[in-house]
């Protein structure tokens, strides 16, 4: 029983990270119809900048996270302008492949920046624990959940209430009509990449918190947010949050109980649980929980 609560809380922490990354994917997908396979590299770069600001400038964790998010937003916007803008009007699979190219470029850059020394994000959570109902919970998991929800709420309010957010939603709905209404569609694409990269940076900082250090091998973690958005629906922010929670908790529960009850599935089975859920979702409900079913007119 103690294990169950601890496991669920760890799952919600993980779910928070997935939700952040899922929102990062969804924002770009809604704006440009492209799945951004460069997200893992953006995440690692974000974690690196958080650590770099923290250790070289001696800034507190939250200040360095915000700075890293700003830097990554700028990098995201520049990337969009240089590599993705020329792909407007070209097939989605070409643009998606451009992001695969960007992924390996940015990943090598990140690996080189990190170098051989241990980069630590210097978070205040570490491995601290609190006791609730007799279970030991990591404060980091709770912090991950809360910070992710706050960040997503801010983005949600921005999209729902602000003028720019309205323009972004209009662009997502219909690019040509938005253009006719005087919206600078290109700028909206850039902005989507900026927000998305900042979310990925935040996810990276929270992922590498807890003293594990920033490593490029952690990048592939972000790809597990793809099953999340398939589950939630490719174009739904609400879906990304709920899907993230479901997959985070299921993954965490698997990690706790699978070695006990189903050991023949092998070590590290929890890592591929999101992908198995994804295959089931594609079988049962291909547009996910909250995705818009695509209707095509001739």
């Amino acid at each position: 029983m103690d294990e169950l609560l601890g496991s669920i809380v760890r799952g919600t922490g993980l779910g928070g990270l997935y939700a952040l990354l899922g929102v990062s994917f969804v924002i770009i997908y809604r704006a440009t119809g492209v799945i951004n396979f460069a997200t893992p590299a953006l995440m690692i770069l974000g974690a690196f900048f958080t650590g770099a600001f923290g250790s070289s400038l001696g800034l507190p964790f939250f200040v360095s996270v915000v700075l890293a998010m700003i830097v990554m937003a700028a990098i995201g916007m520049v990337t969009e302008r240089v590599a993705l803008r020329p792909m407007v009007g070209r097939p989605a699979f070409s643009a998606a492949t451009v992001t695969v190219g960007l992924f390996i470029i940015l990943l090598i850059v990140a690996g080189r920046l990190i170098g051989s020394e241990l980069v630590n994000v210097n978070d205040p959570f570490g491995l601290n624990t609190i006791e609730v109902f007799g279970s030991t919970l990591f404060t980091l998991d709770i912090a991950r959940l809360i910070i992710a929800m706050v960040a997503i709420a801010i983005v949600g309010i921005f999209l729902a209430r602000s003028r720019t957010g309205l323009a972004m939603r209009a662009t997502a709905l219909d690019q040509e009509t938005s253009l006719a209404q005087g919206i600078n569609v290109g700028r909206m694409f850039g902005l989507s990449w900026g927000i998305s990269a900042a979310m990925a940076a935040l996810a990276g900082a929270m992922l590498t918190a807890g003293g594990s250090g920033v490593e490029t091998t952690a990048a592939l973690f972000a790809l597990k947010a793809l099953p999340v958005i398939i589950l939630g629906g490719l174009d739904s922010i609400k879906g990304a949050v709920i899907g993230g929670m479901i997959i985070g908790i299921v993954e965490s529960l698997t990690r706790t109980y699978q070695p006990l009850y189903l050991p023949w599935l092998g070590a590290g089975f929890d890592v591929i649980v999101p992908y198995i859920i994804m295959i089931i979702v594609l079988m049962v409900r291909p547009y996910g929980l909250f995705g818009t079913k695509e209707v095509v007119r001739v």
Partner: protein
Amino acid sequence: MSNDTAKSKRTTHGRPRLFTSYSGEMAIFNTRVKLIWAILGGAVVLALPFFFQRDMVALFTTVFIYAIGGIGLNLLTGYAGQVSLGQAFFLGIGAYTAAVLGGESKGDVIGLGWDMAIWLPLAGLVPAIIALIVAPLAARVRGLYLAILTLGLVFIGEHIFKEAKPLTGGAGVGRTPAEPVLFGFDLFSNHEIRFDLFSNHEIRFDVDRFTVYYFACFIIFVVLALLARNFTRSRFGRSFAAVRDRDVAAEVMGVSLLRTKSLAFAVSAFYAGIAGALLSVIIGRISPETWNFFLSIDFLAVIFIGGLATITGSIMGAIFVVMLPQLVKALTGVLPIDQGVGQGGLLNVFELQTIIFGVLIVVFLIAEPRGLYGLWIRLRNYFKAWPFSY
């Protein structure tokens, strides 16, 4: 009326190279230049192994293998417009199918030791069947679902490869690959070719095992490349292009999206499986970690650098991707690159090579989607019209 011209396919006077029939235009070697290039290329390929060391010959063999995998991916991505990040998964399935059927049994690891005539086709068919089972999941929805699904396959596959110890040897251990013995003739051992000239002069050749395997892979590559070229000229090839260019229009015309996409995926997996089986022989000992996401990206680089929707382009891309590390190593003296895998210099060899792939994928997609093949077309057209610009 012009029965003669239709029969001879080309007019005999006026413009001798004018196509006067559809079959003439769609012929595999529809111009004489193409035929000459193909013969020249074949001659170079036949001569190459006798001028290079065995490690280079092994590398050239890898070019053929990458070209096979690249052609498969190009049928799916270039012709049918579906991105797959799962090529590595199917290479792995092919390699392990081959290893289980044609490999040696050692300890707990299963190996049946069958002939290559059995394991090679099955190394293609097993991945193709898996692809046929999986494809409908992604093919019934539009967009990039296949890319995400295949990405998932790579990770699930890596886990299975690590855990299925009787088949794969398990993580960090690996197993021996299939043995390329075709009808009792070992394609990966040294051979001595002897023939009598005028019954008293005996001529002897010692052929290195890498050279033998090189020729074996070359023949398989030629067969598969011609098959692919034929495939693209067929009804199926045209339906692939229709689905890529406008899926709604294709569907209206009676092309089943689900069937076409699944077929493209299965054919691509077949090629990948064969490539994986052949590659495992060259690698020598296959470990589950080989078939990862980055190997898939290598194959994406092959087709996006080589050129989308061209078989020739896939071959060019394979040459580029496989030979680039050699070029990079040759340049290490000039550029600030670290020789080993350390942290010295600006970048090490592996990092430089990977970053070049990334940059070239992006640059080619933006500037020249037809890749190296497109550059060749531009160059050719320039000289064709020289000294005029068009």
